[in-house]
């Protein structure tokens, strides 16, 4: 139900106080030709109706605060509420971006220290907090790579090598900086096909973009050899940090040979995710790439914290200082967890994923059968024999109150089901998910129609996705009577 359905003429929740300043005519402020000729179609409702409307809407939604959310590659971990308390402190949330440095020393200290923590986790020299999301981090990283190559007279490098299992943002980012994408295949164990990579790498190679562990949830043990191949031909290694939840405190991308890393604070560092976030995708870089970072960076001097501009900066990539409120939450998370806790996050995330994978393997096909990291990819192939597709399995999970895993990705697995449990769930929740998946596998055999029409218990049943894509209704429009 739309809030307009509750509207009644003349009902209101707010009354303006009497005007206590001189009245100015509208025509003096806005030229007549720019004024609208009919009243806007706004709902007329009381305060309690507004509150109930949005509370009801929120109850129809699924979120990690409601139940399990094993959406692969998205790291839908629980976001501790202390992060929100910290971000709500007036010293942070009432700042104005044009305040002078000496009045925002606390905020600058937070940015300085958070950048330092991320550099330490990455095993690299320095970090910018500006990029607003993971893909923005990729774009910034690639711009730095191009600028670095240009500076050393290597402008002909316009090829970016990307595995066929990569996140779609990788090739999109490479195209955005004007590069060509070379796709390197996956070997039978789920890693980069090293001999194919060796043939592709050359004087045109700007670099390699790699996620490790990759989207199959598999750690590429050949990473040192891969790094050597790319570095030998003068290329750089970019680490897509989407799967960083698997490696915290265990291995540093810098030690694997990567030159640039992005982190998704909204995945790995427990800041809000989904529904617009907003996200945050800081990047950490090696010593030799540091002069090219976007400005402003924060430095600590004898007289306090200051902004500065790196010598060969690529310029600004975002207005002001990144999504600052998100940075506060990530800082709170890092300080709450501490260095020892970081490692435990990844150990537990990996343990949870392996537990689920081994138990679900009894009912679902596991195309890459080896220990996984923080996530794994099943295939709906066993169920396909009964006319059931992965989409049907995903929809049926909603009837169990559980969000569906990522489906049909990565593209190299037929009928892919990508599960990432994260470290924040209890064993009871994981077992409930396993029971639900077993029940669905049994239904696929015994009662496939039940799955094809699922979900049955949600506020809205199976959506017509084709119609939603072909004829989307993206905004509410007042009907003729509403305008009158």
């Amino acid at each position, binding site marked *: 139900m739309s809030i307009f359905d509750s509207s009644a003429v003349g009902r209101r929740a707010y009354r303006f106080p009497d005007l206590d300043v001189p009245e100015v005519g509208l025509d003096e402020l806005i030229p007549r030709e720019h004024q609208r000729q009919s009243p806007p179609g706004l709902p007329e409702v009381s305060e309690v109706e507004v509150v109930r409307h949005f509370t009801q809407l929120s109850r129809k939604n699924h979120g990690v605060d409601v139940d399990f959310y094993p959406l692969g590659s998205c790291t839908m971990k629980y976001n501790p509420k202390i992060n929100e308390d910290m971000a709500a402190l007036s010293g942070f949330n009432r700042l104005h971006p044009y305040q002078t440095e000496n009045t925002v020393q606390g905020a600058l200290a937070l940015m300085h220290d958070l950048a330092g923590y991320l550099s330490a986790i990455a095993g690299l020299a320095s970090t910018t907090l500006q990029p607003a999301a993971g893909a923005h981090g990729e774009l910034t990283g690639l711009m730095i790579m191009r600028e670095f190559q240009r500076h050393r007279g290597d402008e002909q490098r316009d090829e970016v090598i990307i595995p066929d299992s990569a996140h779609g943002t990788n090739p999109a980012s490479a195209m955005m900086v004007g590069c060509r994408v070379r796709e390197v295949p996956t070997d039978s164990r789920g890693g980069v096909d090293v001999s194919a990579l060796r043939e592709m790498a050359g004087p045109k190679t700007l670099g390699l973009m790699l996620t490790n562990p990759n989207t199959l949830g598999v750690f590429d043990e050949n990473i040192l050899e891969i790094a050597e191949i790319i570095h030998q031909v003068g290329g750089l290694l970019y680490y897509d940090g989407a799967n960083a939840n698997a490696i915290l405190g265990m291995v540093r991308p810098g030690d694997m040979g990567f030159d640039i890393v992005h982190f998704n604070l909204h995945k790995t560092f427990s800041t809000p995710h989904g529904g617009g976030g907003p996200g945050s995708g800081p990047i950490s870089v090696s010593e030799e790439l540091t002069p090219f970072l976007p400005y402003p960076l924060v430095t600590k001097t004898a007289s306090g914290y200051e902004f500065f501009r790196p010598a060969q900066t690529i310029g600004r990539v975002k207005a002001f200082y990144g999504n600052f409120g998100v940075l506060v939450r990530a800082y709170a998370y890092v300080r709450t967890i501490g260095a020892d806790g970081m490692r435990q996050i990844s150990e537990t995330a990996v343990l949870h994923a392996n537990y689920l994978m081994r138990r679900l393997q009894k009912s679902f096909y596991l195309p890459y059968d080896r220990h996984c990291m923080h996530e794994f990819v099943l295939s709906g192939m066993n169920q396909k024999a009964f006319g059931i597709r992965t989409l049907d399995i995903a929809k049926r999970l909603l009837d169990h109150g559980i969000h569906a895993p990522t489906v049909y990705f990565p593209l190299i697995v037929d009928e892919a089901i990508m599960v990432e449990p994260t470290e924040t769930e209890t064993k009871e929740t994981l077992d409930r998910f396993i029971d639900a998946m077993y029940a669905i596998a049994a239904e696929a055999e015994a009662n496939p129609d039940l799955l094809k029409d699922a979900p049955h218990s949600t506020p809205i049943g199976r959506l017509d*996705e*084709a119609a939603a894509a*072909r004829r989307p209704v993206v905004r509410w429009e007042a009907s003729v009577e509403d305008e009158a």
Partner: protein
Amino acid sequence: MSNPADLLFTKDHEWLDVKEDVVRIGITEYAQDELGDIVFVDLPAVGDELTEGDSAAVVESVKAVSEIYAPVAGTVTAVNTDLEESPELINEAPYSGGWIFEIQIGEGAALKDTLSMEEYETSLKEA
């Protein structure tokens, strides 16, 4: 599966209907079933000059976005504009109303590496 026996096929799951030097191109029953509901087709323009292997059209489904490749070098002579309004024709009638475009084989160019219906169906079983 009932692939019309007089068509040629490619390993990219396209079918080719060759009439002298003009080839009509669409995707196979298997391809449309794997893609699921098709929601958008980005067609080439009549007159486009393509080389073999060029991305000629894009088919977008609820599951994935797939490129349709030119099977041979040549000039686009016709496109199925019905797909602009009704992309579901590819799901409903992949071998008839769901055709995508026609290409006139360029001078000196020739179709190669095509499969017969039997060969195509065998390749599906092996996959």
